[in-house]
């Protein structure tokens, strides 16, 4: 038996909400970053679900693009985070202005 498509969508919505909530309430940059990834992947899940549902390969192609962008984002984002933690061990998102040259 197959799992109904709606379950995937509900799962994606739950994951997205968790990610968004985490992004808003946490101050640790690393956690926030992970939340963004969570949101991205929630979206990926909906893409794939709809691709399957509508029998359209476009959704799966989009997921590949999202993964590429996410990979690039991780490179830049982690670099910033590392730079931030080098300045201050207990840095939060509100301290990013200390990086201002």
């Amino acid at each position: 038996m197959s799992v109904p498509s709606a379950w995937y969508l509900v799962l994606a919505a739950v994951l997205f909400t968790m990610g968004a909530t985490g992004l808003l309430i946490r101050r640790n940059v690393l956690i926030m970053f992970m939340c963004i990834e969570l949101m991205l992947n929630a979206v990926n899940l909906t893409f794939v679900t709809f691709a399957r549902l509508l029998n359209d390969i476009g959704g799966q192609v989009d997921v590949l693009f999202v993964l590429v962008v996410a990979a690039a984002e991780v490179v830049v984002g982690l670099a910033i985070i590392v730079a931030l933690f080098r300045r201050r061990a207990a840095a939060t998102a509100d301290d990013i202005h200390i990086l201002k040259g």
Partner: protein
Amino acid sequence: MNAAYLIVAFPLAGAIILLFGGRKITDPVSGWLATAMAAGSFVATVVVWATLLGRPGSSRSVDKTIFTWMPVGTLHVSFGLQLDPLSILWSLFVTGVGTLITMYSIGYMRGDPSFSRFFFYLNAFIFSMVILVLADNYLFSFLGWEGVGFCSYGLVGFWFDRDSAAVAAKKAFVTNRVGDFGFMVALYLMFAHFGSFNYSVVLAPLAAGHATIATSTATFISVMLVLGAVAKSAQIPLYMWLPDAMEGPTPVSALIHAATMVTAGVYLIARTAPILHFSPDAQWIIASIGAGTCFLAATIACVQDDIKRVLAYSTVSQIGYMFLGEGSGDYQAGIYHTVMHAFFKALLFLAAGSIIHALHDEQNMKRMGNLRKYLPITFPAFMAGMLALAAIPPFDGFWSKDEVLDAAWHKSPVLWALGVAGAGLTAYYMSRQVRLVFWGKSRWETSAADHGAAGDTGRGGHGAASEVGHGSAAPHDAPWTMTVPLVILAVAATFGWLLNAPFGGLDFINKWLAPIFPSTVATPFTVSTDTKWVLGVVATAFSLTGLALGMGLWRKAVNRPALEPAFLAHAWYIDDGIAAAVSGPLARMATRFSFVVDVRWVDGLVNGVARSAAGAGRQLRRVQTGYVRNYALAIGIGTAALLFYVSVRAGS
């Protein structure tokens, strides 16, 4: 025809040179430069006139566009010159008389510390005045109109260190603003109705009989233009500024406040004749204003003591005749009188200036007397001007005033009666003037000690300079630069009437202007020869009576209070009444507006807008916290709202 550009270019060049180089150009040179420029303009006008004369009457109108000034949609206002009999006639006497007066000023203004500034104003004035009359549209003409107003302001207040001069200049300027309001409203109406300001679009079809205009529109436009003309030409109810404008140097009074600028209103009305033709009401208004003014001002002139104020009220009165002639439908008569008046009134003012000069800035006629023995050139010149003004045949004023009065008789005997009464008064006050100035005892000898070396007019450098100029104590005629214009103008005042004599086919001005005033513009009318004779004899009888009265009554006593009632000396209390109204209720209203309406409402509105902007900024600044999570939340909420909106719309 390209000489037309030179008419404008010469005085403009002179004004520019004197404006920027005036401090470097020394005393007589700037005067001669200005005279040369004015003379060049006159010669150019003569050339244009001769060219036009060589053409048949119907093609004597040339439009020279210099460039388009305002291309706005369908409205094209150009800097263009309209060369036609009317504009060239005006230009001829403006530049001609202007040249003579500029030349006269070289002697009169000698030693003044602001010598060059004076001649800058004179050239700028001539430039503005030729623009006013030569412009090919109302808006460009309005530019010249404002230009002469500015020069008038600058010249009335030329000795601005005297309070009275500064106040008089301000009065002239402010009074003219009232008229400018009328002119501008007329311009708006013209634009609304014709969609253009060009004479060729607005006036030509009306003049040719191709178009008509509703009576109400014609009346409204005309009345507004007449309001402008009334202010510029010092007619009831806006004449008060002209007598005060005598604070300016005497050549200015001669040029601007007698011969040329104040006749701009007469020009404007003559130019607008095709519109006036459709509005009998407006013609009645013009005629009534003219007749009323010529009588009222003449009565006031009878009791003035200042030699220039007599002439000033006389100017107001004489322009009344011009208005009367135009309002009565005989434009040629009004213009004829304008030209004659330019001759004899310029002459009278220059001769008065010569007297004032000889007596070291004494202007009170009661401190003059017996001067005919001392001023052998000024005396006959003044007499020629006086006889011309008093309309004694065969001098200038007789002929032109006669034509005006004929037209007035045809319009209404009441207007005629006012005109004739004014003529009698004119002869009276002029004979009183010459009697006080040239006959009797020489009262200036005793009075000279009274008011000391400073002079009661206190003209700064000018008084001192003329002391230097005169070696001896006895008054004597001025240097030749001042007497030559006097002699030329005296000849013009005596024989100028031959330009438009009513017999022998000598009516040059009438013939010259005929293309401007065809029967579709001014309905022709005839006054029978017999009537003309009777009217002429009656008017002359009045003039001679006035002359005899003036000469007789003022033979001995200098102070005759019975002949100088206070209400006339106060100019019928009109000035005082206006002053009371302005300083009383109007001033209170102005205070209210200033401190309540302006401070609380207008400023309050402006400051309120500023304050609310600042407040909004203060509130909005809180949004920019700098915290990533706030922005993320905003983005999230925004996205959710958008999604909600889209889904709701999609559902409906």
